[in-house]
């Protein structure tokens, strides 16, 4: 069967593995073998390669990775927000009993904002500058529910109060520019949750905010999740946020999953050199030494390395025999009941390296 193995730019589909979650809720979203590519003047950009994951009711899944690792693009593809102009999306997204990639744009549109919602990185540019927040919230209700303006407004007010906007009955007619960054993100969250969706995708919801406000927003998301049982996919590069809220983590690199597992295992028993690098680059209180950045830069998604996508930056590739890291792309391999990683190192080697370097301590 070796002649069927594709070599070159994209990860072979045989590496597509669905890693079961430790979470016991019902599966709400199931992404299977999702790939996204863009046609550009410079060539085909393989933004997401063969990504698979499941999200369960009440579960928080964190997708972490550097800029350009495909974490945002994969979520926009799930939401049907990529537009069909030059994006080519393949694979399956099962949500609410439907397969979304093959569904009509209008079918997906009717789910957006009702059963699946999304909040974005910069709440100032994500809110329309010309409409009051009340109008924008009301619109989110009336887009899906046949209710009166007054009922929608009452619901908007209720949500603004719920997300902690002080004197909401006065602020409801304010415009986005009259609110602080944290308040704007609260409005975005209110708007996303106003129809009580089953799934919330939060794309770097705290990146544009002050540190103190970040903590409040994360706290708010966690409270709301408890209250409504919403499943959350949080996209971030902040491992502090991940440790705070996530049940499970997908580490993405070069458009594909590099490692996936329960949050405890990702932090205490990471299996992949890129994850080790990420963990080593977290600043710790009381640390006197220098931060340990990962050398090199993320790969170009137009010319992905032939072997392991991370190999050019990996400090441990010499430990793998036959120069396999440069020639063969590692499979996404199950390393534990709920854990998978994409690496040529043997289990023994990883254990030794973790002990040597005090990784995961």
């Amino acid at each position: 069967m070796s002649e069927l193995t594709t070599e070159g730019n994209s990860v072979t589909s045989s590496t597509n593995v669905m890693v079961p979650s430790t979470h016991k809720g019902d599966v709400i979203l199931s992404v299977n073998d999702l790939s996204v590519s863009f046609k550009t003047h410079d060539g085909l950009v393989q933004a997401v390669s063969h990504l698979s994951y499941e999200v369960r009711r009440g579960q928080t899944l964190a997708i972490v990775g550097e800029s350009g690792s495909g974490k945002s693009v994969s979520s926009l593809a799930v939401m049907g927000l990529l537009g069909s102009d030059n994006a080519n999306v393949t694979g399956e997204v099962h949500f609410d009993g439907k397969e979304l990639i093959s569904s009509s744009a209008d079918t997906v549109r009717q789910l957006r904002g009702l059963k699946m919602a999304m909040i974005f990185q910069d709440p100032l540019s994500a809110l329309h500058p010309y409409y009051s927040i009340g109008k924008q919230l009301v619109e989110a209700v009336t887009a899906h529910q046949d209710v009166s303006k007054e009922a929608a407004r009452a619901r908007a007010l209720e949500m603004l109060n719920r997300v902690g906007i002080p004197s909401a009955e006065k602020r409801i007619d304010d415009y986005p520019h009259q609110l602080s960054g944290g308040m704007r993100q609260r409005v975005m969250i209110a708007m996303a949750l106003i129809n009580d969706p089953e799934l919330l995708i939060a794309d770097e919801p705290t990146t544009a905010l002050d540190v103190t406000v970040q903590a409040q927003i994360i706290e708010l998301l966690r409270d709301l999740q408890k209250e409504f049982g919403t499943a959350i996919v949080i996209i971030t590069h902040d491992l502090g946020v991940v440790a705070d809220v996530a049940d499970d983590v997908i580490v993405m690199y070069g458009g594909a999953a590099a490692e996936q597992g329960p949050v405890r295992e990702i932090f205490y028993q990471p299996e992949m050199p890129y994850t080790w690098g990420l963990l080593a680059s977290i600043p710790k209180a009381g640390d006197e030494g220098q931060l340990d950045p990962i050398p090199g830069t993320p790969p170009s998604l137009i010319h992905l390395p032939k072997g392991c996508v991370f190999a050019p930056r990996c400090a441990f590739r010499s430990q793998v025999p036959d120069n396999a890291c440069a020639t063969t792309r590692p499979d996404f391999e199950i390393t534990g009941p709920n854990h998978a990683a994409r690496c040529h190192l043997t289990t023994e080697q990883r254990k030794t390296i973790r002990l040597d370097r005090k990784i995961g301590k």
Partner: protein
Amino acid sequence: MVPYIVRRLVVLVGMLFALSLITYILFYAVPTDPASLSCGVHCTPEAVAANRHRLGLDDPFYIQYWNWVKAIFLGRDFGTGYVAMHCDVPCFGFSWNRQMMVTDVITSVMPVTIYLAIGAFVVWMTVGIFTGILAARYKGSIFDRGVMAITLVGFSLPSFFIGLVILIFFVVRWQIVPYPNYVPPTEDFGKFFMCMLLPWITLAILYAAYYTRLTRSQMLDTMNEDYIRTARAKGLPEKVVIRKHAFRAGLTPIVTSAGLDFAGLLGGAIITEKIFGLTGLGSVAIKAVENLDLSILVAITLLGGVFVVVANLIVDILYAAIDPRVRVK
């Protein structure tokens, strides 16, 4: 909002004052002698001097300017005795070529210009915005490319060419529409409409091409904004996303251009008026240039300036209505 408008009004008055002064200086610096022009063929130096005195042209420049400005607000009497004439407020002087008060000349032709401008404006804004939005929505499609090609042609052709082609085909060759013979709308609206139809279209083609392109590029800009993605994430139908979210956000430059273009047309559409034999502000202005009829020229120039300045004020107020961020400043 009110202090904002008051502030704009103060600026407006200052601008109009500067404009009137500059206009007056420019035209009265032209080396002609209205006194001898208005005297006729058999003219004695005494008669010229008498005329000059009667018109107040022997006064120093600043007195002449002051009297002219004063007349606009208070009216004015020219001469004494049996040649005495009273000029009512707003008085812009007396045209010796036409033997009429300038104000009367302008008010008699102004309606034609206003109808021409309004009709063309309605046509080009409707066509331009509608086509522009569609072209942006189906960017890269055959429709979009066709629109871009046609608008480039429409935008490049001079209005005298468009006007003549329309005239030749619709009036002369096919005889769909009679040659324009102006009838006031109060008299016979049907005839008025048929008469104005071709001038409206001629004027509108040029502007519609420009507004199509402007709307399209504005739409393409705003469609990439984050809040458009949010609107889609809410599950709004694409129609609503375009109409309510994208178009509103891209409206400001369109309103700016529309205000100024409309004001410009109110100052007279010289070529279109000429081609279709309409007597509006534009053709009066051309006549005045030919005859060096300074009092009319000054008045029309100033009036054109007033239109632009007032349009600017309206555009500013509309800004505030469109964009809440302007209101709080």
